[in-house]
């Protein structure tokens, strides 16, 4: 199984409720993915941001125990206080000027080889952890998060290990998130092709291959819908994919619609989930337009 979730807020008055809305959705899909989970949140306002010089948020995580306090101190020492390290979920988020993530990566690679970058983005922070998704939400106070767009995943692993780094969402490039319910059958082939082209992977997860293939198409100039169509063309398997950028939310299903998906559209928000249960508690759901995405049709909503 696995549960996929996307929530794009249209009515800014609902932005403070993003986290609590996501939590009701995640709790409903707990049993579809009890192994592990990941939650991505996009928000405009960051207390430390200078409006005309937004900083890149880098979400860090690891499969092994890490002394995050010591890493934070070490990074502050190296890059100065403006890096503003703060605990986020099971890991750490630091903030660097655009382009600064490369220097950061080098430092982490040198002394902290078990730490990985889970996500980078101007508006994006990502939490991943193993264990019951609903418990993860409670442990890290996800209900209190604010933002305009959220993507989440509850995982029931079938093809690779249950670890933080194997968890979705995959963030192959700045502000791009991919979560997947399903399985790809030709991912090893696509993976070899991407590796030959110099693409690096953080896990042996099949969904990561789709995410990195999508990122490659975007980097080559495709728009989001074109890139998604390429994923459908090149990747064989079953999927409901929920994909987000800094200002778009997309959902697409395979030709046989093997994996479920339901959309609720209101003036206040667009919500996508594996099952209607996950939408049933959302505010104003009784008046929402509820429908199932058709197979192989790319649905995209912008802010």
């Amino acid at each position, binding site marked *: 199984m696995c549960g996929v979730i996307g929530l794009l807020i249209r009515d800014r008055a609902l932005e403070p409720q993003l986290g609590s809305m996501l939590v009701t959705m995640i709790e409903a899909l707990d049993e579809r993915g009890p192994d592990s989970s990941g939650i991505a949140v996009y928000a405009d306002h960051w207390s430390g941001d200078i409006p005309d010089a937004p900083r890149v948020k880098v979400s860090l995580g690891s499969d092994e125990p890490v002394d995050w306090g010591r890493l934070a101190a070490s990074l502050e020492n190296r890059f100065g206080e403006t890096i503003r390290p703060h605990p986020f979920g099971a890991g750490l988020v630091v903030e660097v000027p655009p382009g600064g993530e490369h220097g950061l990566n080098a430092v982490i690679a040198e002394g902290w080889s078990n730490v990985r970058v889970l996500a980078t983005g101007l508006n994006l922070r990502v939490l991943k952890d193993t264990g019951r998704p609903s418990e993860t939400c409670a442990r890290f106070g996800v209900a209190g998060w604010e933002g305009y767009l959220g993507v989440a995943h509850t995982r029931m692993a079938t093809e690779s290990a249950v670890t933080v780094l194997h968890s979705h969402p995959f963030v192959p490039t700045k502000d791009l998130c991919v979560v997947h319910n399903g399985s790809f059958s030709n991912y090893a082939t696509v993976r070899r092709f991407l590796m030959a082209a110099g693409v690096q992977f953080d896990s042996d997860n099949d969904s990561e291959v789709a995410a990195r293939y999508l990122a490659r198409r975007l980097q080559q100039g495709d728009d989001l819908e074109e890139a998604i169509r390429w994923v459908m063309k090149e990747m064989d398997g079953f999927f409901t994919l929920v994909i987000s950028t800094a200002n778009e939310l997309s959902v697409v299903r395979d030709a*046989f619609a093997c994996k*479920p998906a339901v959309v609720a559209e209101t003036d206040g928000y667009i919500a996508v989930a594996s099952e*209607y*249960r996950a939408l049933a508690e959302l505010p104003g759901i009784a008046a929402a337009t509820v429908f199932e995405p058709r*197979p192989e049709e790319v649905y995209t909503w912008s802010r």
Partner: protein
Amino acid sequence: MESLNCEDLGTRAVNQRLRALPDGGHARLLQPRGRHNLAVGLSSRISIDIEGNAGYFLGGLGGNRDGTGPDIVVNGFVGWAVGENLMGGSVRVRGSASQSAGSSARGGTIVIEGDASLRAGISLKGATLAIGGNAGAMSGFMAQSGVILIGGNAGHGLGDSLYEARIYVAGSIDSLGSDAVITEMSDEDLLTVKELVSDAGFDHIDPTRVTKVTSARQLYHFSTHNHGAY
């Protein structure tokens, strides 16, 4: 009449309370909120109203071999596989149904007043499935016996690998599946459709203008001549 709040009781307790009702009993299920497995495995002749949207397998495994069973009405929409493996009684959905409506149902009647999603009536084994609106792709896949009525349009691959079930379509058909053919309506077919339309209350269907789809019976036994059709 018994009112059961699904949120307060939980699925198992709701189903146990329904099971305890004697023939002629009536229950209302409140706050279903997309919950799965509601009103499953019931055999008594009771009536159940579900006030809201239900999840997967609504009313599944219900009824008896003689065709009797509970009569269930959902005032909302339902998730995957409504009435799966139904034996008897009836399920009426006032809204739309997600995928695999009536899958493997052996008896009884499933009425979807709205649309049914992909693979409606997959592997149908004798039940009646009446859909007021459209049916999604691959509906009637490998249906073995029983009747499917589609009041709207049918998606691609209708009746793929069909056995002896009959499919009647009032609207258009995007495409037929392998081994499905359009056959002429007989007087008996017309009578069947008239009864179905009347029982389901589907006034929008003109029984004299439906298309009948059955099996061409070319795929029953493997034959190298038919290799391309598989």
